[in-house]
């Protein structure tokens, strides 16, 4: 679980202390953004696809209740048990109930941000069920007892040397062997053991198709397939916004998802789960956990279109220079910075300020969420909820006043221009502006207003 008290500015400053590691993190993720660009460029209809995806999602959200009911009916006809969870706790109780009834001692999980959101792992572990994350990146962060730093590449904050060290300690690999292939094989051998001995498998859901009652899971490692093919019980946990109306809509999203996420034309595996295999059980848990509240909010309902591709993180210049661990909510980056504050403005309000409003996220988003605007609108909520630091709030109220009184604003500006040049550098050096290595601009003798008036007098 994530520490809710993380302050982005402080955590990011700490991360940037190691400038080498920070540069590496930035370039590694920028490389993924470039791969995304190359893939997108190859589709002449890229922007049309984005519009289409946006429209399908917008339509679905406008009739979400109907599509959810249709999905449930069809899934149940396929013999799947459908459960509804209003919040994280109910989700965890339902999953535990299924596992307890089946006498499950070990659960293998493929990547699911929803279960991170719900805190499922600690919940089950406290109740004596071993949970093994089987996505390689997820497995790495699980072994390190830390949250994922990215929703698609959970261990992107780590270098291979750090993973080698971890695997040496946890899996007994050779000390100092940093070869990625060697390390991956070691993880695979270890995971294979768990796949074979697990009693149940849990997956997330990328898309749930109302028309068929089936769910679609996109992975690159095939771990979801193994995790559902070997143990007799399959649980699929999904947020209620994952619905799309028809099978024929799926292609729009699968074409966008992997290209946006990792710059591949498609994920290695696009697995369709329609019913339990003979003798097995299949359960789908549909989770609300605050989503209905977002759906009812004019400013933020668009965020429910998200297909969790992570492209907004890859393009975000702030995310790349601060890592996902600098954000208080489990989902970091631009999309997390609207979902987090929507969930709890007091806890996660500061995330909305970890943004220059550059707008790149809104442009890469395959479902065209107005992300950077949502962050500005979340700041409104943060201001109204009284979460701003007192000094900042005072400054804003002063600015509010000066904006209405230009003569005082001018007087303040003039004072600044006269005073700053005579203040000893020893004092300004510690200001937030100058501290990290940035000088103040020159202070001109005259403002433009003064110059303009003088020019007018000279002319007349």
């Amino acid at each position, binding site marked *: 679980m994530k520490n809710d008290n993380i302050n982005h*500015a402080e955590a990011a*400053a700490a991360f*940037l202390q190691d400038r080498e590691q*920070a540069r590496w993190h*930035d370039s590694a993720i*920028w490389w993924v953004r470039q791969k995304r*660009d190359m893939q*997108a*460029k190859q589709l*002449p209809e*890229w*922007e049309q696809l984005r519009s289409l995806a946006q429209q399908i999602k917008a339509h679905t959200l406008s009739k979400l209740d109907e599509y959810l009911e249709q999905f449930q009916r069809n899934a149940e006809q396929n013999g799947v048990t459908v459960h509804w969870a209003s919040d994280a706790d109910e989700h965890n109780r339902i999953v535990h109930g299924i596992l307890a009834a089946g006498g499950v001692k070990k659960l293998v999980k493929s990547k699911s941000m929803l279960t991170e959101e719900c805190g499922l792992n600690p919940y089950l572990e406290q109740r004596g069920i071993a949970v093994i994350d089987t996505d390689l990146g997820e497995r790495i962060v699980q072994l390190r007892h830390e949250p994922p730093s990215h929703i698609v590449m959970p261990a992107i904050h780590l270098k291979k040397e750090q993973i080698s060290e971890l695997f040496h300690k946890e899996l007994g690999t050779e000390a100092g062997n940093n070869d990625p292939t060697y390390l991956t094989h070691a993880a695979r051998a270890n995971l294979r053991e768990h796949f074979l001995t697990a009693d149940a498998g849990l997956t997330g859901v990328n898309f749930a198709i109302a028309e068929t009652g089936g769910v679609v899971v996109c992975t690159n490692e095939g771990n979801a397939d193994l995790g559902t093919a070997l143990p007799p019980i399959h649980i699929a946990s999904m947020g209620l916004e994952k619905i799309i109306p028809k099978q024929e809509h799926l292609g729009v999203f699968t074409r966008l998802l992997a290209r946006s996420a990792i710059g591949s034309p498609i994920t290695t595996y696009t697995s369709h789960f329609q019913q339990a295999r003979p003798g097995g059980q299949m359960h789908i848990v549909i989770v609300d956990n605050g989503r209905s509240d977002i759906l009812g909010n004019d400013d933020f309902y668009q965020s429910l279109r998200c297909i969790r591709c992570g492209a907004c993180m890859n*393009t975000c*210049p*702030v995310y790349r*220079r*601060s890592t996902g661990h600098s954000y208080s909510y489990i989902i970091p980056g631009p999309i997390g910075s609207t979902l987090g504050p929507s969930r709890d403005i007091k806890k996660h309000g500061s995330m909305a*300020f*970890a943004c*220059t*409003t*550059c*707008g*790149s996220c809104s*442009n*890469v988003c395959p479902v065209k969420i107005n992300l950077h605007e949502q962050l*500005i*609108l979340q*700041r*409104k909520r*943060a*201001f*109204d909820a009284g979460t*701003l630091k007192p000094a*900042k709030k005072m400054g*804003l*109220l002063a*600015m*509010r006043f000066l*904006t*209405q009184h*230009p003569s005082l*604003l001018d007087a303040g500006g*003039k004072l600044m*221009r006269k005073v700053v040049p005579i203040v000893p550098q020893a004092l300004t050096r510690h200001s*937030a*502006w*100058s501290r*990290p*290595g*940035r*000088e103040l*601009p020159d202070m*001109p003798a*005259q*403002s*433009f*207003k003064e*110059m*303009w008036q003088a020019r007018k007098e000279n002319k007349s």
Partner: protein
Amino acid sequence: MNVALFIPCFVNELYPHVAMATAELLEGYGIDVVYPLEQSCCGQPLSNNGDSQGACDAARRFTGVFKDYDYIVSPSGSCTSHVKHHYGWYIADDADYQAMQPRVYEIVEFLQDVLKVDRLPKPVYFPHPVSIHQSCHGLRELGHAAPSELMIPYHSRLERILQLVDGVDVRLPERRDECCGFGGTFSVDEPEVSVAMGEDRVAQHEATGAEFIVGADPSCLMHMGGIIRHKCRPIRPLHIVEILTGRGGAA
């Protein structure tokens, strides 16, 4: 035709020569330039920090000051974009705002779309390599260029207008439109990230071999200028109007 200059508050205090160059450029095309003295801040810092009451009051005040002019022109893409695209959050129903909104222009847009200029008022010879800095709000909200994220035909207002300048050698940095890290109050709320971004950006501009970083937003240029000065680097930030009026490089 009269044009009211909208000079952002910090440009008024810190970059008066950019404001003056904007005025002179417009006057060079025979335009009657007015500078309404009662103008103040457009309210973007308030809006960006969630003070909707303050932002709303600022929007109403701005509209009251500027609504009767034929055009409202500013040398800042970001402040222009706030007025053009975000005042709607606060005063969308205001009839005066609705009538004014389409007449608000950033200076380069105004030259290209309204005046449709094909020459500069005075010929300018600027025999220097320059690296283009696409500021985010000008780029992604005003559409100054094709953003690298969108798969649309390439265009760039700054590159196009620099074709009117003799001798200039236009270059583009690696990551052609990544944010410089200024971000208004972000620059002091998250100073370490802001400066880290700015350092990377300056290095990318320098790597082009340019002598100047040219942009249409004084705030980004101020931020990068502060970093350049701290590191005692030779590259210089320059606002596009400083080149177009032939003032560039003198400073």
